[in-house]
């Protein structure tokens, strides 16, 4: 029992040296991962040396401080279980030092015993330090009950009756924090406590949000916002506040919060993303696009900077909040998805050249080996199928009048899909006793059929876009060929029943959509070919195509073209009747959601000058009327 005091002194000195070294490194803010690891290893060594002696009260202060230092560093290196194990060991040794006996097995009883034994003694601040580590461990594992229980025990019972509410308990927490100057610590206990305080609030808030209990979440998070906290964390807090506001239907407040978050930390991508969502909701596409653009560049910047991250603090909020919570807080879609959204939005808002650029970027990103997104990411947001992205890109590029690029992109899609398209695809799963040709569709996985249908759609659409590209290049002959190919692809699908209900397909709506898309595509392709024929002066063929097109899917533009064709064929009365009919009929909105590359087509390229035609028709009808009158 005669521990030489010089040994304690030497160890104290050693401890202080390590801490100084760390502090020096921390102040210099150099990204030296090794120093951190080195310090940890040295602390661990010291601690093991101390533990080599039987626990005594004389060296208890030193031992606990050394444990604290070691554990703080181990938080970022070891698994929570290991840290917990070390912590328990330290506590047991502390108890041993004062001669109390306790079983290692139950953590709760151990803590209780520790608090009881050391309550009010000189060692209380030291013990509290260790308990902060326990808090941190539990926080990272979201064990709020444990924290509550611990804090309840720490708080003097006489002050306030235990409310059972963790947040109140934390607010009322009185911690005996007295720093021993002779024994240096890597992180002051007060700082750690404050950080834990905020993080617990945030974590609690996030938990509430996950339970979709936004009001309470808002309370917790707003309180956290009042406390002083690191920059990044504050930005996250603001973002979370904004998120709650959004959910609670207060977009303006939400936007304000997001702005605050960005003011605090520009690299808070979540705030940018969320604001873009808010703008979309409110229909401010200009702002939305801007936000997305910023977000995209921020994400790119971030990924570039990612590897050379600034030296993290000893204890970062990320560490305390745990992986899952952090993932929720800083959830941002992948750069590819952002880029796609951006491009998509631009296209919808007729910012064609920008959109084309973004789409081309997107395709490049998908192809390049470095910047590719990897694997099944945790994104909740779906990314469209790759061929769809290609078709959208082709469409965007076509709108930007880069015809040859568009043709090239379509070629890529065609090359990949066209040989997968069967000669005949019959969509009629009910009648199993059908002829041999229907075997292909019958008795096979619905998924495969659907994939084939997709291939038909994609190759057809690719041909369709190519046709339009050629049409706009005034190469009507080539356009005619391409349109005919598109039609050949599309008519391979036979739908037995008009109303296609497939019982064994899970997503009936989806399939319906596809069939409707197919019909629309067929109609538009036929119309496109009709226009080609008109350009080439083959009016009869044009008439046939327009009529077929109308059978497939009606569209005002096509009707107008039909009227024009009839007029040119000198079937004026029919033209007038047709015009009259379509003019008076209200445009029935398309029941299905068409893909982007078909949606906005109607107002473009093949459009006829309606006013001219209308004028012509009105005149004719008038004259007819006059004739009939007379």
């Amino acid at each position, binding site marked *: 029992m005669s521990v030489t005091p010089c040994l304690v002194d030497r160890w104290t000195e050693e401890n202080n040296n390590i801490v100084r070294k760390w502090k020096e490194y921390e102040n210099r803010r150099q990204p030296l991962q090794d120093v951190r690891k080195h310090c940890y290893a040295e602390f661990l060594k010291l601690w093991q040396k101390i533990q080599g002696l039987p626990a005594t009260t004389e060296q208890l202060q030193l031992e606990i401080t050394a444990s604290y230092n070691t554990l703080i560093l181990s938080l970022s290196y070891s698994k929570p279980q290991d840290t917990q194990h070390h912590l328990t060991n330290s506590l047991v040794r502390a108890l041993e030092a004062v001669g109390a006996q306790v079983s290692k097995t139950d953590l709760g009883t151990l803590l209780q015993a520790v608090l009881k034994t050391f309550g009010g003694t000189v060692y209380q601040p030291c013990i509290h330090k260790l308990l902060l580590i326990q808090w941190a461990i539990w926080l990272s594992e979201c064990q709020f009950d444990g924290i509550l229980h611990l804090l309840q025990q720490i708080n003097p019972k006489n002050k306030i009756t235990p409310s059972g509410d963790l947040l109140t308990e934390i607010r009322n927490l009185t911690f005996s924090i007295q720093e021993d100057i002779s024994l240096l610590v890597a992180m002051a206990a007060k700082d750690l406590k404050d950080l834990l305080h905020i993080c617990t609030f945030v974590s609690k808030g996030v938990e509430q949000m996950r339970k979709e209990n936004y009001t309470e979440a808002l309370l917790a998070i707003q309180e956290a916002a009042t406390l002083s906290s690191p920059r990044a964390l504050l930005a996250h807090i603001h973002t979370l506040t904004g998120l709650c506001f959004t959910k609670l239907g207060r977009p303006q407040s939400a936007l304000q919060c997001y702005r605050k978050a960005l003011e605090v930390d520009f690299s808070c991508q979540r705030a940018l993303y969320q604001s873009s969502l808010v703008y979309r909701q409110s229909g401010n596409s200009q702002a939305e696009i801007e936000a997305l653009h910023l977000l995209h560049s921020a994400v790119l910047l971030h990924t570039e900077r990612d590897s*050379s991250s600034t030296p993290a603090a000893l204890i970062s909020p990320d560490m305390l909040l745990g992986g899952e919570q952090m993932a929720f807080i800083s959830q941002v879609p992948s750069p590819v998805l952002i880029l796609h959204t951006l491009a998509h939005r631009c296209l919808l808002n007729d910012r064609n050249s920008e959109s084309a650029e973004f789409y081309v970027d997107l395709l490049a990103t998908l192809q390049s080996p470095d910047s590719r*997104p990897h*694997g099944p990411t945790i994104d909740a947001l*779906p990314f469209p199928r790759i*061929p769809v992205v290609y078709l959208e890109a082709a469409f965007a590029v076509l709108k930007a009048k880069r015809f040859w690029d568009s043709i090239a992109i379509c070629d890529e899609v065609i090359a990949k899909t066209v040989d997968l398209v069967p*000669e005949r695809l019959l969509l009629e799963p009910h009648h199993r006793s059908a002829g041999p040709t229907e*075997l292909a569709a019958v008795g*096979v996985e619905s998924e495969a059929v659907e994939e*084939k249908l997709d291939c038909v759609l994609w190759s057809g659409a690719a041909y369709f876009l190519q046709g339009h590209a050629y049409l706009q290049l005034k190469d009507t002959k080539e356009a005619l060929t391409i349109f005919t190919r598109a039609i050949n692809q599309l008519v391979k699908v036979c739908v037995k029943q008009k109303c296609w209900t497939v019982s064994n397909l899970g997503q009936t709506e989806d399939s319906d959509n596809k069939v409707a898309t197919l019909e629309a595509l067929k109609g538009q392709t036929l119309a496109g070919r009709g226009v080609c024929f008109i350009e080439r002066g083959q009016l009869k063929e044009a008439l046939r195509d327009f009529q077929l097109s109308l059978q497939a899917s009606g569209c005002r533009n096509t009707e107008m073209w039909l009227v024009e064709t009839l007029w040119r064929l000198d079937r004026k009365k029919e033209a007038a009747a047709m015009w009259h009919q379509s003019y008076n009929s209200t445009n029935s909105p398309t029941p299905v959601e068409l893909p982007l590359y078909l949606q906005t087509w109607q107002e473009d390229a093949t459009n006829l000058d309606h006013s001219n035609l209308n004028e012509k028709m009105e005149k004719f009808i008038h004259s007819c009327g006059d004739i009939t009158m007379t």
Partner: protein
Amino acid sequence: MEAVRCSVDCWADFGELLSGRVVHTGTEVLLTTGTSDLLVFSGQEKRVKSILQFDSPVTSLAVSDKNRLYALCQSHGLYCTSFPQECSSQSVSAQKCDSSVSTISRDSIVIEDGKMQAFILVEGILVIVSLQESFWSFDLYKVPNCSTGATVYRKHASVHVSQNTVGARIGSAPVLASVYPSKDSLSKGRTCQGHYLLEPLLFRLLFGVDAALVHSPVILCGLPDGRLFFFPLLFPSWGEQKPRIRMLHSLEQPVTFMGTSVIGEQGPQCLVIVGQMGRILLIRASQTSSDGKAADCGFIEQTVRGPVVCACVNGEHLFYSTSTTLLALPLSKTATSSAFSSLTAAEGERESIRQEKPALLSQSAVCLSVSRVIALAEPSVTPTGHVQLLLLSHSGRLLQVTLPQESDKDSVSRLTSSKVGQTVKDLLAGIGNVWERATSVKLQLQLKNNVLKHLNQVINICSLFLTYQKSSQEGKDCKPPISCHGVAKWSTLLQKEALVLTCTLENLSAYVLDQGWTLCIEVQSPYSLTAEGTSKTYSFALKKLDCGQKMEVNLPLESRGEEFVPVKIQCFLVYSLQSLLHKEECRNFSASEIPVSHFLEDKSCISLTLNTLTLDWLDCLRIGQPASHSEIPKQNSVWEATCIFLSSRRIHTEEQPMPKPDHHVVAIRISFDLLKTVLSFRDCSSAVLCVSVLNWLLFGMFETGGQKFVESAVVCAHGPDRQPVRLLAKEVILSDVNSEGPLSVVEVQVQSSSMAAVFGLHHAVLRRVQSLLKDAPMKCANPGQLKGQRLCEAVRHAESLYKDLQDSQSSAAFGGVMKTRTSESLFDLYLQLRENPLVIL
């Protein structure tokens, strides 16, 4: 099951092993042996370079492109450590550095999770499969950029699949693979461990259009319960309606291996999945056929005899190890089996065919004769085209197996017994062909040798003649190596009398005259009716004439009249080059129209001139048959017929008939001394001398033993024109010729009623004497007394006379117009001859 021999190279021996794993990373081989040690083995130095000690057994490994080593340890988690550095070059040169042992501390754990089962590193993303309480979790971690010092592995995403307890086997880990769409369809189906390329069409069919459009790799996972899941790695989420991770198939047995295989010529076309119990799933795309059917994929399941411990694919071959042996299965056979074709013909989609006949497929597997393999590394192909497998055997040996090349293997493995006979036949036929060729070549060689031998002889004989010619030119007296002598004889054949020349060829040389030599005898009669004279050549092919042998040939001398005498007979030995060639070849040459080289034509030959003989009237005399010609019915020759015709016409001419048939007499005088000296008659009477002179003239000899052809000084004979001729020799004493006194002279008188015979004989006698005189200067030492000059002039005179005579005869024969002149000239000649009796000294 057939077996193939392959070369096995043992790299190391680690002792008995229970489990293991081999990864080949360029130069190094990483080995786990079921213990917590990870061995880094140098393939070049064939030794363990370093040992990494982990806390627990390493279950799977990966090496990133930044030379970081990832190792998954049982119940600990994923370690990441820098790849053990090579020994510095100095130390290598100084000494062979020992393998370094390094302990990997817990600090190297990057992701700590004891439930991890497998992982794969793709494009800087770690995909980790772990088994949680009730589900399989696929977690994606981004590998931090080492250069910036970040070390935190952030989990990006995770997907869950519920656990299927049925059929799950404890102890087997999930298998992970990443599949890329191959941009170039001809590229190889394999990049490195666990990463494969797949043909774009099949990729799209299996994994969707989206992944193909963004060229995203797809992570394929085979769980121990046999289910195959896949999800695209680099991909934004689709949202709710599509599940992230989808099931491809269920093998219903633990998955051992997944990979792609090249079948046919169009790149990696087939996805291969092998189950632990030997079930093999092949997924292939069927191309869009001409009838416009959409491309589709077919699933074929087949079974080999299990269990399959480990497997790998190279090109068309699946290599798999049962617990006992290593086998190679050609997938192309399997995939193109009838089962597959029937599948593609059916319109069904993604139907699978399951064949439960292990024997059937196992038969086509080829045994590689390597036993108890527990781990296989990715196969590599050497520059020479051999497939090399690196494997770890149960006995702890690290083996490198080099397989024989495709073609070799085919020929070895696919020989059936029926083909063996055929092969033997072929081989024998080949041997026969070679033998035939050898024989013909030998024959040709022999022929050539023969030809050379012949040529050699020919050349030898030629040179012999050359030396003879030289020596004779130098004046040496030597015998010709080969000579030919001729004697004319009268023979009666079929009551027709004919003069026959008998030539004797005598070979005195040391060489044999072989086949191919021809004796040519040219008979020229320069004084025939035509201006240039007639000549006739007879040739006799020699069969073989040995040294010292003689050969006689007989040839008829045409007896058309007397005009042919004297004749000059030239003998040649001719060797035709054509005879050098084989007969058949000659035939071939003549049969084909190819212009045979000209030297082989008939003209090309070697010709050696032998001696020249002269046959004159004396030689042609028929002695001692004075009365016979009246009895023998006369055959009218053309000449005689002409004479008869002419005589019958004589009445019309006023001229005197031909000179009377009284004897014309021509005399030649030869001095006694000369004869005595030349003919070496020393002391004998003049009568004997006269007989001897006649003998000499007629037979070319004076005394031939006891035989005497002529016994009196008067010889009656018939000339070739069948006119009776008398030769007479008598001694005459001349007093006016020599200044020294009276000269006794032998006078040879030719008496005949035929002028031609007289002249011919006269000429012949003179020729003999001339030849005698040619030799005389050497023997007679008294040239001053000789009147050789006169003799010569006389001979020449006689010849010209004879010529004139023949001219006149011919003109008389064809014309008869200038008869008076003819007779006049003849008469003149005659007178001249008579006036100049020659004295030959």
